[in-house]
């Protein structure tokens, strides 16, 4: 049994070096406001704490320790230099409400990052505050809604998303008070234009697209889609989840997208931190820029300063306690400086080369790409349906067995419309040797599945725990140790 930190706790034990000189507070906090019994926090020594969490760390797969080809998540190397740059005392100790006179360092970094992202996306203005891709999406949806409301176009409340879209897209639409409508995807992975024409109309607020799409192919008829949507009075939203594929090759602004978000934790290599923090800056063309959230940074004669609500009357407003995830923005800025415009073009080149190479290796070994006639982008989907039918070993079983081979599993069962799907994204920072080793592991597991399917179905065998019972986790809900 994995001991929790609470199992190691003993009354009155403590990390004594962390003491703070304590003085009586009775006279400051009247009795009626006081806590009666102390919270049940662990009582352990400093070494016990350090050892416990260090050992927990060792039970994680991570980019630093394993190949992590999680499709649509862009698990590339997170440069230590960028981390170190953001962890400097001057940045860490800056209070968010420090007057701008004493904030020119961080403001200048943020301003320059805004400019870099405008260039990268081909947009007129960028706002950095959204704290994750999902909040960036919400920002974009609210901006679209605000734009139509400004034009007294109050009937436009439908957001169209492809059937293959990530679940966040429709969830965002609901959160923005809009209604998600779906448009069909063709057998080749592109949006079905006839279906799109049927679904757009006077109620269309906008269309949310990812390009390359969630099917991991480039949406070739993006210009036709743009015309159909704009002609119907709708706007076009770009979900930047897959920007790594086209960095320096094509810009969403040039594809006539009106508003977009980026995932800096994907394309700009900021650490995922076990599930966050992210950063989801939003860019917009001239039409939608006035609706961007606050605050933003501008450069004036007297230096850099915040642009707030009073100066942006059409803004959809504030979305965070202060200024979003500045620490993440600084890492992305540092990464951009090291890469430069030329380095960014290399990113998409080699991310695409790696994905196409791995797809070829797997298809040569008999696996089935979901879209065999299409190029891979920075990622690709394979369907293990036939393997599952023949051996009973599912994509989930393959995923669990890959862990034993020392690889984090690709994204499984997404996009939903591809049966027994693996979405594989190697990223540009992996070597050819690593890709070959992954392909070899897939081939070895397929052989295991044919010879001893039960063994693969029971995987993983070499992790700290075996396959965990997710049904029990819900039926016998146990979410705190006390």
């Amino acid at each position: 049994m994995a001991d929790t930190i609470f199992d190691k706790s003993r009354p009155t034990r403590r990390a004594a070096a962390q003491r703070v000189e304590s003085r009586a507070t009775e006279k400051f906090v009247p009795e009626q406001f006081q806590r009666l019994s102390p919270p049940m926090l662990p009582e352990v020594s400093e070494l016990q704490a350090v050892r416990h969490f260090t050992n927990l760390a060792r039970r994680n797969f991570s980019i630093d320790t394993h190949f992590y080809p999680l499709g649509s998540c862009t698990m590339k190397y997170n440069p230590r230099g960028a981390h170190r740059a953001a962890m400097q005392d001057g940045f860490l100790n800056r209070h968010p409400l420090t007057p701008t006179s004493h904030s020119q360092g961080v403001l200048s970094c943020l301003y320059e990052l805004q400019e870099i992202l405008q260039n990268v996306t081909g947009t007129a203005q960028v706002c950095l505050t959204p704290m994750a891709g999902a909040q960036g999406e919400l920002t974009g949806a609210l901006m679209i809604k605000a734009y139509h409301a400004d034009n007294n176009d109050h009937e436009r409340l439908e957001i169209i998303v492809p059937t293959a879209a990530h679940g966040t897209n429709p969830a965002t639409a609901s959160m923005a008070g809009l209604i998600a409508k779906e448009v069909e995807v063709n057998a080749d992975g592109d949006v079905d234009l006839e279906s799109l024409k049927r679904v757009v109309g006077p109620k269309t607020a906008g269309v949310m697209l990812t390009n390359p799409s969630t099917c991991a192919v480039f949406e070739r008829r993006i210009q036709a889609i743009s015309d159909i949507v704009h002609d119907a009075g709708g706007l076009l939203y770009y979900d930047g989840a897959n920007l790594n594929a086209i960095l320096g090759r094509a810009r969403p602004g040039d594809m006539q997208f009106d508003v977009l978000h980026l995932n800096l934790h994907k394309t700009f290599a900021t650490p995922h931190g076990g599930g966050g923090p992210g950063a989801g800056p939003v860019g917009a063309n001239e039409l939608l820029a006035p609706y961007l959230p606050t605050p933003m940074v501008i450069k004036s004669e007297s230096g850099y300063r915040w642009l707030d609500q009073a100066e942006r009357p059409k803004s959809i407003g504030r979305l965070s306690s202060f200024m979003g995830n500045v620490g993440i923005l600084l890492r992305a800025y540092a990464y951009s400086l090291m890469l430069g415009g030329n380095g960014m073009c290399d990113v998409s080149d080699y991310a695409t080369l790696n994905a196409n190479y791995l797809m070829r290796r797997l298809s040569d070994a008999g696996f089935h790409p979901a879209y065999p006639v299409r190029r891979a982008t920075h990622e690709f989907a394979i369907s293990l349906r036939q393997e599952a039918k023949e051996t009973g070993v599912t994509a989930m079983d393959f995923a669990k067995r890959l862990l034993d081979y020392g690889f984090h599993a690709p994204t499984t069962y997404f996009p939903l419309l591809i049966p027994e799907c693996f979405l594989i994204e190697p990223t540009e920072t992996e070597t050819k040797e690593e890709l070959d080793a992954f392909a070899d592991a897939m081939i070895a597991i397929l052989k295991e599945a044919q010879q001893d399917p039960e063994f693969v179905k029971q995987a993983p065998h070499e992790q700290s725990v075996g396959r965990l019972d997710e049904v029990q986790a819900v039926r016998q809900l146990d979410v705190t140790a006390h």
Partner: protein
Amino acid sequence: MPDFPSDLHYSQTHEWVRVEGNRATVGISDYAQTQLGDVVYVELPEVGAHVEFGGEVAVVESVKAASDIYAPVTGEVVDANDELDSAPETVNADPYGDGWFFIIEMTNDELPSDLLTAEGYEAHCQAEGE
């Protein structure tokens, strides 16, 4: 092989209906519970709610999916199976018996024409599986 009792009516969205007088007991079919896998939660309608044929009235969850349950008849919800709160696995174990979801007192005596017989529903499931 899933079971398709012949005394029940079925909807295309996999609910079954047992009619006794003007009361219709509703659950999900054996085929549906197999497809869904282990049921971990059922969100039931409030007693007293008015429901329309085809409207969303309940939700059934497995670990990896949440599926809407649609009203197979029009009327008022007069009872809901609270036992499922603590024992959602009953839906898997006994879908046509203790695993029922709710009872609707029907506004009309006539059943909606969209409902299928056991035979028709079995064919519908076969087509869907292909």
